């Protein structure tokens, strides 16, 4: 145990004094996140801009008055209006693509003229708090004006909140699990390649002539890497939670999951690296495994924005599986039993990878 600890201290000290390598791998996903935000999420508007979907089945002067309210300042600065059919509107609401869907059923104008009771439907997005409330209040006030003009408040709004599980995600919430996973995978790849450095300087051969076990050395490396992954995950999660406003259902569980997944991926890349015959070959092989897995596995782009066929394939990759589990832990949709099962699976895969890596290290790589 003591040798494992001194190995951890040794590696952490080395990495701390050569932060450039890790910083580079951390910078890539950060740069990508910024780029994505500029392209897809930003747009340069000073205020948050929502989308109001309107299904105007009545299509009369009266119904257009209701929707026209949202074209006036300041509402037109806050909302983009899109006319849709009810089914399409529901689908887009289910995907979390809009702040609200207002349905004005046919017969609205007649009801206004007759002074009959009538009801509009408003579906709101629970992941947004301000804009849906603004829309609901605006519609209520407008209908109240109609009601008072004809002598009574008989026109109402039936507001429906889309169930939580179908809620959409903000840009940050959508992309963050992918970006953090990419950062961890890239750091894992960089750390895995370091074994060649230790081999080249003869440290492994020197160690093999000592009474300590190679398993202790490998365990020390894993533990050191685990601490790095946990640190990166904690920093990322706390940053998006407090600065980005992304809800994180369970911070400790998310950190632990990312740490375990990082260790498993580190072991996989370590084995890949040691399978090569030169450091250059190891680097190429590591990138050849890591980048496609990251790309298809939802690290560059979330599954939500991928073509359906690619997302279906990606979810079956190790990276895709890990990212999906991580997203579920972050947004709170994961169940305790499911997480426990996933952790057990990850631990089993890691144990197997540890044994194979150790065999490779002992038998031939150290020489």
């Amino acid at each position, binding site marked *: 145990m003591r040798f494992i600890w001194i190995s951890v201290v040794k590696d952490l000290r080395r990495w701390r*004094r050569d932060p450039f390598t890790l910083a580079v791998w951390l910078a890539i996903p950060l740069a990508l996140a910024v780029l994505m935000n500029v392209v897809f999420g930003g747009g340069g508007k000073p205020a948050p801009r929502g989308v109001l979907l309107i299904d105007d089945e009545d299509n009369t002067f009266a119904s257009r008055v209701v929707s026209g309210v949202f074209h006036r300042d300041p509402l037109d600065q806050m909302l983009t209006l899109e006319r849709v059919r009810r089914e399409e509107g529901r689908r887009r609401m289910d995907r979390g693509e809009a702040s609200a869907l207002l349905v004005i059923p046919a017969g609205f104008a007649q009801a206004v003229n007759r002074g009959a009771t009538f009801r509009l439907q408003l579906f709101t997005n629970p992941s947004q708090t301000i804009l849906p409330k603004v829309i609901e209040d605006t519609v209520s006030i407008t209908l109240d004006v109609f009601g008072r003009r004809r002598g009574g408040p008989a026109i109402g709004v039936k507001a429906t909140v889309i169930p939580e599980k179908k809620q959409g995600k903000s840009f940050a919430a959508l992309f963050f699990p992918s970006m953090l996973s990419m950062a961890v995978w890239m750091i894992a790849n960089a750390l895995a390649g370091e074994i060649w450095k230790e081999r080249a300087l*003869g440290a492994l051969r020197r160690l093999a002539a000592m009474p300590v076990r190679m398993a202790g050395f490998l365990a020390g490396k894993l533990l050191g890497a685990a601490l790095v992954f946990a640190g990166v995950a904690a920093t990322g999660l706390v940053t998006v939670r407090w600065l980005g406003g992304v809800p994180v259902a369970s911070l400790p569980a998310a950190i632990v999951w990312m740490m375990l997944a990082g260790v498993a991926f580190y072991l996989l890349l370590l084995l890949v690296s040691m399978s090569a015959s030169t450091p250059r070959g190891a680097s190429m092989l590591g990138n050849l495994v890591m980048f496609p897995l990251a790309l298809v596995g939802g690290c560059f782009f979330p599954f939500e924005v991928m073509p359906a066929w690619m997302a279906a394939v990606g979810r079956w990759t190790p990276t895709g599986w890990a990212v999906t589990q991580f997203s579920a832990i972050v947004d709170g949709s994961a169940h305790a039993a499911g997480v426990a099962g996933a952790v057990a699976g990850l631990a089993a895969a890691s144990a197997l990878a540890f044994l194979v890596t150790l065999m490779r290290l002992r038998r031939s790589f150290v020489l």
Partner: protein
Amino acid sequence: MSNAAEGARLVGHAGPFVGNPSDSSLGRNKAAGTGVPCSQMIEVEQLRKSYGELVAVDGVSFTARPGEIFGLLGPNGAGKTTTIGCISGLLAPTSGRVRVMGHDVVREGTAARQALGVVPQEIALYEELSAIENLKYWGGAQGLRNPLLGERIQKVLELTGLADRAREPVKRFSGGMKRRLNFACGIVHQPRVLLLDEPTVGVDPQSRMRLLELVRAEAQSGTCVLYTTHYMEEAETLCDRLAVVDRGKVIAAGTLAGLRSMLEQRDLLRLSGVFRPEAARAAVAPIDRIEVLQAEEKLLVLSLVDASRKLPAIFAALEAAGSEVRGTTLTQPSLESLFIKLTGKELRE
């Protein structure tokens, strides 16, 4: 050894042990953990290591005693590092047996390695770490704990002259300083047996002298030192006994005096110029007690007694044979001349 001739012998690949296994006068060390008297700290018996058809070590046998510096001298690729690898347990012998302080390195690897200190040919140091941090890591890996670890670190830093740079990252060190720290990491745990694999390669003369002094000091404290080198000067000045190796085999072994005596006080005369090899051989053959070791178109190497007095006769004979001598080097009997005598080639080839 009663005389020099007894102190050395030519060894074939199936040769006997060098040294006397029953001689216990040189040390009273006990095999680690067994309580068995151990006069031989290293015992290598018919060691063979092959990689497919390539035989790297071919039937090497020798022993080394406490307080002794035993040298393995040979050119690059002779099998020295492979032999060290087998002794340290890094490589599994194809056949033969290796014991360190009585422990078989294959069957009792951990016990054998506890007695060992290894200074590899590479500078096996973490360059981002300081000298102290490297020593802490390698000392800790050998099982040392504070406060002993701290005391030993301080001691070896002073011994190697690195105490004032101890907290600097190793990457700022010169090559000589790195070599000294590499050595320090090998002795920080006070090993009973020290394996040094060409520890002075690429080192400036000053650092080399310092390192050799350190090696002598280790031996004087009772440590058995196995020292591999291809520098014959180092082997001559440092080693108590030597095994000369070539192509994986021990071709001669014994004390320095014993090995020199095998040359019968013959000088080595190296002539450069333009020669017709066969004609040159024939021309010098009549000269008394002369032996042609090497005859090429540009080089002629002769072994002879009292060479300086015979130079005029040699020049005259070669001139008559149509040869042209442009340069002459006369060397007193040395390990290099022995190596050339035994293998027909220079040690640095």
